[in-house]
């Protein structure tokens, strides 16, 4: 069985972001970019499934400008077997990504498609769900545990939901999106970095896949959240009630 993992190149999680002065977006020049942490977890899970013998190949996919190849190289250095780069400049919103992924799934025919639950730059949390809908595949999102059953061709997923944990059983092929507690991703060790140099990254363009990148959404403005105001110490219960009523308007 083949596993396909979608990974995204985003601003590094530890970087302090700044909004561009013209409010059109976030400053990305000279800023460190890395693989989305949830995508790392997705790739790690795919690698573990392969190492347990239940999959034959892990294919990493990334979409965007040329630099995405760096992120794919990291994925290969972690242990993915092949890479696919869909070259597209300009904004790629979740629906376009989902359409591209559907096209790739039809080419590669994986048994499992694993993604991170959301990207830390847009926090959309939509791509996995959309692609499952487009493919008409079952989905297990916010996975905190994944157990494959090869004979039954099914996968049991524990999901982190607001009320606690929900366990689902999905027939393969299926879409899984990963949450933080699923695993701890491995580091890229030198022997693997060396092997990665000879691994193949295939390039596609959206036209090759017959997908038109169009967006029904337009980013109008990006602003920083308002700065948190200092707290106020109230001197009596009456003053507290007064403030809650008249200033905060909550009672």
């Amino acid at each position, binding site marked *: 069985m083949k596993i396909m993992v979608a990974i995204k190149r985003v601003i590094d999680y530890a970087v302090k972001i700044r909004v561009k002065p013209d409010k059109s977006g976030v400053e990305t020049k000279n800023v*460190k970019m890395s693989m989305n*942490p949830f995508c790392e977890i997705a790739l790690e899970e795919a690698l573990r499934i392969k190492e347990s013998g239940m999959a034959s190949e892990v294919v990493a996919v990334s979409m965007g400008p040329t630099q995405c190849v760096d992120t794919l190289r990291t994925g290969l250095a972690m242990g993915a077997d092949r890479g696919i780069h869909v070259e597209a400049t300009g904004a790629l919103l979740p629906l376009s990504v989902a359409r591209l992924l559907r096209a790739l799934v039809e080419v590669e025919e994986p048994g499992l498609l694993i993604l991170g639950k959301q990207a830390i730059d847009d926090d959309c949390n939509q791509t996995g769900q959309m692609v499952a809908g487009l493919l008409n595949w079952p989905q297990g999102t916010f996975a905190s545990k994944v157990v494959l059953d090869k004979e039954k061709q099914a996968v049991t997923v524990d999901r982190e939901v607001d009320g606690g944990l929900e366990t689902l059983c999905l027939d393969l092929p299926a879409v899984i999106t990963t949450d933080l507690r699923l695993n701890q991703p491995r580091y890229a060790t030198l022997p693997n970095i060396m092997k990665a140099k000879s691994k193949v990254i295939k390039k596609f363009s959206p036209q090759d896949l017959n997908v038109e990148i169009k967006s029904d959404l337009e980013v109008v403005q990006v602003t920083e959240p308002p700065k948190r105001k200092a707290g106020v110490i109230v001197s009596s219960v009456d003053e507290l009630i007064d403030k809650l009523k008249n200033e905060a308007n909550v009672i």
Partner: protein
Amino acid sequence: MQNWGRTRRFLIYPAVNFLNNRRSNPIAANPVFNSAFGLANHRDSPLYSESEKSNLHTCFHSLRDKVVETGIRSAIRFQHRGFGSDATKIQRNPLFSTLNSEDISYFKGVLGEKNVIQDEERLLTANTDWMHKYRGSSKLLLQPRSTEEVVINVSLMNNIISFDKVSGILVCEAGCILENLITFLDTQGYIMPLDLGAKGSSQIGGNVSTNAGGLRLVRYGSLHGNVLGLEVVLANGDVLDMLGTLRKDNTGYDLKHLFIGSEGSLGIVTKVSILTPPKLSAVNVAFLACKDYFSCQKLLVEAKWKLGEILSAFEFLDNLAMDLVLNHLEGVRNPLPPSLHSFYVLIETTGSDEAYSKEKLEAFLLHAMGAGLITDGALAQDINQASSFWLIREGLPEALMKAGAVYKYDLSLPIENMYNLVEEMRIRLGESATVVAYGHLGDGNLHLNISTPQYEDKILAQIEPYVYEWTSKHRGSISAEHGLGLMKANEIFYSKPTNVVHLMGSIKKALDPKGILNPYKVLPHSLSSSS
């Protein structure tokens, strides 16, 4: 309130027993407080009669008795007492007079009620060093806000005075915490030229007074090169304004170098002007394993050649150090698959072009692997992974603290023989202690740490003076970056000839004739008693 155990700027009453020891996070200048204080010299007040001789009283014992008496002490205090080393007992200099209530009122008048601290709990924390190895007997702690007042603990003097974006020259007060300065400079596109594991609590004045080394010395050099100017307060209360912001100034003797590294014994640093390097965006960290010490050395040579201008840190630790960190620190894991590695090396590169730097580092690492210099390695793929690699190295002092008692030695040695000392100490101590080694291999600086369940005199006897003699024999330094303080003041002769030390004594006499600034430290006691 600050984490007193770590902020080092507190005053020490000339105590009988243990005055502060330090680790890589140095104490800043402290004038010893007593009635015959520096302030007295320009205030002819009958309060400060120096002819007052005090009786040699065992301050420590009186404090300890108090501890037993009061009974509200928690178990932790008693545990700390157990750690006290019985080694050195300092005789209080009879020329110093004792604290009395008039002095306390005077200081309250100058500083305000809040900044004169007599509370026993705070005093106990202030009097005990981070390792709970030494305990002073100060009865008073002062916190001034500006140079005009008596300077004892400068953590309230923590303003950034100015920063020039073009030249990168930062001027700030001595109480600024290093990490805060780093955060500030980050917004301006610059970094501090020094970085320590303890940046969250160490103050820049202390870093300067002890000439702190840190993790990036191999790239940016020492504070002697980066500090452009200082404002210093002398023992007689004179304020020396040497706060230049010029890269070049050859007018007369460059006195600031005397104060850098003087550990507060010549004057108290109150303001610092420092040159900061630009913040380069491409930082890469690799964690490597080597099979023996010889490979580590060769790796260093290769790194200097092949990585050249982008190399910014080269640290090493041995496998016992790694085990310690994995066992005692939370959230730490070995980046490399478990295997019999003997040595670990952490290499950091900082450059201006991400793709170029990464390529260069990767090429170097693959070449090193092919040449058999490294047996395995991991390259951090994002900032989080890089921080976790650093946590292993920077968390070592903390892990050692948690493991029990530790004897620390900070030695500069020729790189070829450095590890031989570690192996010899292991043979000497056998089963009684765990000898752990790590350090700034790039600077030839070994941090030798001997971990035992408790402090014991017979273990100490096996270690000292053997370590100092060994270092001296190889023309090394018994204190590479940690300074001499109390612990090594009398051992200075292992690294400096007698006539040099005597000249240091003359300089001390010239700048602090009454010997009130940080007495009993830095220079041997024999020098002050002969005066």
